[in-house]
């Protein structure tokens, strides 16, 4: 227990969390601090490129095995299954309509790549090993949850429409996935030598860029919370905190069953615990325009993302370390 508290304290006092908190506070205080849109986009491209490339290089260094394929399959299954659990919890805990509940559930089956990047950083800082291919697991977990959300609508709401032609192509080929998977493959092909060549660009500045990016995420999350405070009823807020813990249990079970390293288990927990706020909201606006965006964006970005970043990640690290003996 002492170890868990120490880890939580270390995490809370790390630069990335403190910059996120600064962004939140600045937004709550209505400061005019803002990161220009183009710079925020540039930073997200940098982070995806760096994390993908490093993951690919790690796979090249350690080789591939059957666990990689099983992890990818498990990621897809979890992304399909978690929205079902989230939907059931939402219907019990909140008064959301079927459409809103399905839309929110879809977000929780998908992943937050920024939470994954932050967790990777914590795992590395904690001296834990993790499988480089977890980046690929993150990529395959983006989209299946959207299909689950649409299936939930079709199953429980007779007036719902089918998925529009072309939407799945847009989801699978969205810029984040293309860059993440592409960088992963290039890192895999070029291996450690390739990594050595660009390490001054993607290794050393990584933490600084992540701090600045999380400052922006804090500003965005704070503004979202401020503008949508009327939406956030107690039941919904509770769901936003409980669901990541429930999701992380699925990730924990899968990670342990697959025999992943301690860091790998942590990252599987984080992927299962996090909620999308980039790919899925865009898909939901196209496929389910009747669902209220302020509910799912406030929950995923304003509640679950800060929870995972501040308390969730140290919790997952502590649990995974205790259960794997890591």
């Amino acid at each position, binding site marked *: 227990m002492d170890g868990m508290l120490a880890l939580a304290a270390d995490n809370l006092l790390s630069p990335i969390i403190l910059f996120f908190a600064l962004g939140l506070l600045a937004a709550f205080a209505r400061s005019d601090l803002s990161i220009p849109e183009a710079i925020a986009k540039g930073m997200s491209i940098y982070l995806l490129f760096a994390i993908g490339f490093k993951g690919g290089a790690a796979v090249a260094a350690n080789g591939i095995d059957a666990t990689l394929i099983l992890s990818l399959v498990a990621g897809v299954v979890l992304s399909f299954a978690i929205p079902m659990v989230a939907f059931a919890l939402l219907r019990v805990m909140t008064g959301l309509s079927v459409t809103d509940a399905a839309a929110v559930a879809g977000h929780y089956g998908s992943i937050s790549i920024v939470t994954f990047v932050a967790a990777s950083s914590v795992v590395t800082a904690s001296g834990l090993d993790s499988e480089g291919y977890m980046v690929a697991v993150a990529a395959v977990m983006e989209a299946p949850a959207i299909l689950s959300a649409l299936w939930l609508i079709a199953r429980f709401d007779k007036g719902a429409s089918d998925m529009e032609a072309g939407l799945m192509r847009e989801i699978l080929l969205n810029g984040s996935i293309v860059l993440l998977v592409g960088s992963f493959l290039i890192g895999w092909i070029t291996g450690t030598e390739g990594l050595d060549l660009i390490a001054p660009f993607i290794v050393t500045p990584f933490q600084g860029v992540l701090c600045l990016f999380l400052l922006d995420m804090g500003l965005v999350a704070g503004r979202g919370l401020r503008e*949508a405070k009327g939406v956030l009823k107690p039941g919904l807020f509770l769901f936003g905190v409980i669901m990541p813990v429930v999701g992380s249990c699925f990730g924990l079970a899968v990670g342990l069953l697959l025999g992943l390293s301690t860091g790998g288990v942590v990252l599987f927990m984080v992927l299962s615990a996090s909620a999308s706020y980039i790919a899925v909201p865009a898909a939901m606006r196209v496929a389910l325009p009747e669902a209220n965006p302020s509910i799912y964006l406030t929950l995923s970005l304003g509640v679950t993302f800060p929870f995972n970043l501040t308390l969730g990640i140290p919790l997952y690290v502590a649990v995974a370390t205790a259960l794997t003996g890591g």
Partner: protein
Amino acid sequence: MQTHQAKRVEITIESVMESRLTKALVDAGVTGFTILPVLGGSGRSGQWSREGQVSRAGGMVAVVCIIRPERLDGLLDAAFGVVERHIGVVCVTDCEVLRAERF
């Protein structure tokens, strides 16, 4: 200077629907339009600002078309098919243009 009657159609719609709308307009024979970014606003779905968006999901764009009056119904039918279920505003105003052959 000789001017000609025309209709100016301004459609403010979610960013994620932009390509669908412009495709529907092109399919309906509308050859010219202009797309403008929207900085923010307020409506039935609440207040929003481009600054606070983490993805395209929350942003809006304005698509402006200037067409001959007789082509208005075709354009509105095409636009309605896309915007019907979505947040947005469709606004038609009279305007005058130079060089009618371009519209």
